[in-house]
């Protein structure tokens, strides 16, 4: 083990990686849209996780004496059909949206990375079969799969993360496979193989660390897409059950109310979704330019 570790040191180039990272950070900070995006994400994380401590509201009991009130001094964003304070609900639902979106996006990236690295590294017919599986997955639009799932079952939060992760790992797998194809014949991987390093070691210690920038960029876009997908989930009948909720759930349940003129039930959750998804996309864009990797246009 120890002799191989020292050879790993020869193969990778730690100083260059560090200065590369610093350069990337500098390039990222120069991208104004990306920095604004980062600010928006930080704001919403504080809003959803620290906000309820400063602005405490009752989000469990039905309060019939204060249903569908328009925004006022007592309820800044009004109240919904069962009397929950809308601003408090935005914090409460945002927690679910952010946690589910982040976990599903990260899960999808992890699955896609492992799948893509394995396929690209193996090559030949294994690669061909693995990538046809990806093609088949891409051929069925995610919303259709979600609707079929909703016909079968209503999952809990963990189940929801698993389902979303399992249907959205396809794009990162393609990106990582392409990256692996260019890395697997580079000298440091060939050297490792020549001195008897295993395939697993080549993938885990050399190919994946060198694909880190691609993976990070893919993960950021994946999180954006997952948060957007979570917003569709309640609309498609897979949502979290009341009294718990998420932004998509607030939007779906506010839809009928919107026709009665209760705009405050749909505009805040709608804007929150748009802002957060926009922010993650802007960050992803900035990271892609900063790391100078290929991603989506």
């Amino acid at each position, binding site marked *: 083990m120890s002799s191989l570790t020292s050879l790993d040191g020869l193969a990778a180039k730690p100083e260059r990686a560090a200065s590369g990272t610093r350069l990337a950070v500098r390039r990222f900070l120069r991208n104004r849209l990306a920095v604004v995006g980062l600010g928006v994400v930080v704001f919403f994380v504080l809003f959803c996780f620290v906000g309820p401590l400063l602005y405490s509201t009752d989000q469990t009991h039905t309060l019939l004496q204060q249903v569908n009130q328009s925004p006022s001094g007592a309820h800044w964003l009004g109240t919904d059909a069962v009397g929950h304070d809308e601003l408090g609900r935005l914090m409460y639902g945002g927690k679910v949206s952010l946690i589910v979106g982040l976990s599903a996006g990260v899960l999808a990236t992890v699955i896609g990375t492992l799948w893509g690295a394995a396929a690209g590294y193996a090559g030949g017919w294994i690669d061909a079969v693995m990538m046809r*599986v990806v*093609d088949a997955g*891409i051929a069925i639009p995610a919303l*259709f799969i979600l*609707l079929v799932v909703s*016909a079968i079952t209503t999952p809990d939060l963990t189940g929801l993360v698993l389902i979303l992760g399992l249907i959205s790992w396809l794009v990162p797998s393609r990106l990582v496979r392409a990256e692996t194809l260019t890395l697997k014949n580079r000298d440091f991987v060939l050297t490792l193989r020549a001195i008897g390093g295993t395939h697993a070691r080549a993938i885990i210690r050399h190919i994946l660390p060198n694909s880190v920038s691609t993976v990070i960029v893919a993960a950021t876009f994946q999180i954006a897409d997952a948060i957007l997908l979570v917003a569709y989930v309640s609309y498609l009948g897979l949502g979290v059950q009341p009294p718990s909720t998420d932004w998509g759930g607030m939007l779906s349940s506010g839809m009928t109310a919107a026709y009665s003129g209760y705009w405050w039930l749909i505009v805040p959750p709608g804007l929150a979704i748009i802002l957060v998804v926009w922010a993650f996309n802007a960050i992803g864009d900035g990271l892609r330019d900063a790391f100078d990797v290929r991603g989506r246009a």
Partner: protein
Amino acid sequence: MSTYSFLIRRVLQALAVVLLVTVVVFCLLHALPGGPARGILGPQATASQIAAFNHEQGLDKPLPVQYVYYLNQLVHGDLGMSYTLNEPVSQLITERLPKTLLLTVLSAVVGLLVAVPLGVWQAVRRNKPVDYVITTLSFIAYSTPVYFLGLILVLVFSQVLPWFPAQAPQGNSVADVLSQPQGLVLPVVAGAATMVAVFSRYMRSATLENLTEDYVRTARAGGTRPRAILTRHVFRNSLTPVVAMLGYYIPVLFGGALVVEQLFNYPGMGLLFWTAAQSSDYPVLLGCVLVISVATVTGTLLADVLQRVIDPRVKAGRS
């Protein structure tokens, strides 16, 4: 690799993908708690009723046997009977698919007509305020759930300003739908928005890439006016790959149609799929997913072939 062997290889790959899709969908739909019988006969059905239903529908045979049986039917164009509508699935789909195609094609055309000029404009004015504003707007459009956008459109352009109906045109045929064009406006706009966001980005980067090519410098050195370079050379070379991207975009268009059709009560395949999901009508779900997957795989195939034919530099570049 010659073009012919490339074509044959790509078509074989596409067939393999379609076969895989049938396996995936088949497995997904059979992973049901209580099976489809429970969904159709309701919670009050007795065990013997369920057994009779399963026997009648061939659902008591082993899964691989059911799969082979299903594939055989498929080859003969038989997608089974709908559980709830008592009509052959193939007939239901042939009735609805043209209307969905109308909606998606209209959205795609409108989307492209807006996206392409926007993208070129951004490329010409890159890193100027216009570029930033359009970039931000397209990110916002991309980040908006289609049903939220549709709802806002209805509230603004149907409730507040009574310009367009909130419901899509009804009718059995494409002609019926086309006879009420004002009802198509809001659904098409809702369907085109994401498209504008994505394709203006593609067009922008394609134009930017082409602007740095040697032939642009040559033309400029030869004294061709910038506008002529843009319209005669750069635009053409940028547009073709972007249009080919449409092939890869088909699943997103169908996903959008699913939401738009439900929201505006448009009588297409998306709405059929939606109702089928509510009533656990598995043959219909299976049939729709299959048709959409075949459309997607064909689209991807066409896009790959098109790119190879248009641009001789692309030589099976993906592997």
